């Protein structure tokens, strides 16, 4: 096994290790859809996805397509030291957005100029809490399209 310190930091963009709980989310993103898990019994949505509804304890789930409209809930501006692939794009914004369809659902993301634009494609200091944004997708791997956000 290679020692991480000797090998130096990983120099690519990080991708999700898709698991049983998250697979429907990432497969939807791969098709260009934003889907959020909902309890098929009591109807309450939840994020991050998990097997059991914490409200009614049902294992039955469904995945709702969201409109892709959201509002910035919080924002930071990241500066180095960062992993190389991220440091190259710094300073950049990271946001938490609340979905307009269901504001109880929040997602981490970036506000960017377009789905295929880099993290620093927007001046990070122009992103404010309350900004309206719309989902786009950034292709990171054959099986990963990351939901990101463009100004509405």
């Amino acid at each position: 096994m290679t020692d991480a310190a000797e090998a130096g930091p990983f120099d690519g963009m990080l991708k999700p290790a898709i698991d049983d709980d998250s697979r429907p989310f990432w497969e939807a993103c791969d098709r260009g859809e934003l889907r959020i898990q909902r309890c098929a019994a009591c109807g309450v949505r939840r994020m991050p996805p998990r097997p059991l509804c914490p409200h009614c304890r049902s294992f039955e789930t469904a995945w709702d397509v969201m409109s892709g409209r959201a509002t910035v809930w919080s924002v930071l501006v990241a500066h180095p030291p960062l992993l190389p692939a991220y440091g190259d794009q710094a300073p950049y914004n990271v946001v938490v957005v609340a979905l307009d369809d269901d504001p109880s659902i929040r997602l981490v993301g970036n506000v960017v100029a377009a789905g295929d634009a880099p993290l620093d494609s927007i001046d990070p200091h122009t992103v404010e809490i309350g900004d309206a944004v719309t989902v786009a997708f950034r292709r990171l791997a054959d099986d990963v399209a990351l939901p990101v956000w463009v100004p509405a």
Partner: protein
Amino acid sequence: MRDATAIVGIGNTEYAKALDRPEKVLALEAILAALDDAGIDPADVDGLASYTMEGTEEIEIARNLGCRAVTWFGQVGYGGGAGCGVVGNAAMAVASGQCDVAVAWRSRKRGAAASRPWAGVRDRVGGNQQWSRPWGLLRPVDEIAMLTRRYLHEYGGSREHLCNVAMAARGHANRNPAATMHAKPMTRDDYFAARWISEPLCLFDNCLETDGAGAVVIVRADRARDCRTRPAYVHSWAQSIPLDHQTMTNFFTDDPLRGPAWDCAAKLWAGADVGPDDVDVAQLYDAFSPLVLLSLEGYGFCGRGEAPGFTEDGGIALGGRLPVNTSGGGMSEAYVHGFNLIIEAVRQVRGTSTAQVPDAEVSLVTSGEGVPTSALLLVRR
């Protein structure tokens, strides 16, 4: 188990950016110092409590110390949230008779693989981190910066208040010869001139990176009276995982600014004869300055959104409303996953702090906010 046990020994290594001994040796040095402080033979240690992130296993401690028979051992998870829970679990084991002499410790080197936020990170990130890391929310400081921006937005605090936290800690460190920042005074101008790390947090909103170790010894109250030192009685302790909590990236719950401290505090005060108004001095976990604001509110020292004002006019400095992090804390003494805060809380009860609160009788110490957490209320009797 109110006052049924006491911390009777404290010990720590020196704190520095880089120490040459391995974590195991640092752990043993701290534990030996704590046992010597208590006047207890290492062979008598029969309980061992540690963090799940601890690099040295119990069997290593036991066979190096020459413990005759360890009859209880346990660990607590969630990094900086563990500390007070490690001590609390040890106290519970002593109180229930599973062991008679428990040692709790933390040894940490910044160069150790487990201490680096992205050590071993390769291409794919799993579990909860898949919902944050790919977007460049990479470091603990980013996770807390996100909550901080929302906090300042909702409550109207400013960086001036984060600066108050950093300045109070530094002022206390300047009185503490063992503190990493002992000889480095800081001005408000220094704070505002520092480089950004993750806006709204700058370099001085972050804790130190430290090599070092600390340990405490816990025994029953009847035995405590025979030890060398003035006992710091474990009056109450608590842990909490609140509803729908996600460690560090706690953005998904209904009310992310009501962190784990709130439920931990409710349990802590329910088990105590005293309340927040009776606390003389507090060590509030400060991996990042905003955690102190969240903890002031969570543990009931002020209302929601009132922590910024609480820090004004020297409110958390020695001589203020509630002196906080009187050794310099994680930001200016050492960052040993909060274990140095526990040691300082004991010193305050003993009357031996370098920033001593006169006649301190009730001493609070908390572990990491924003993660499954814990707290410990120590008293003098």
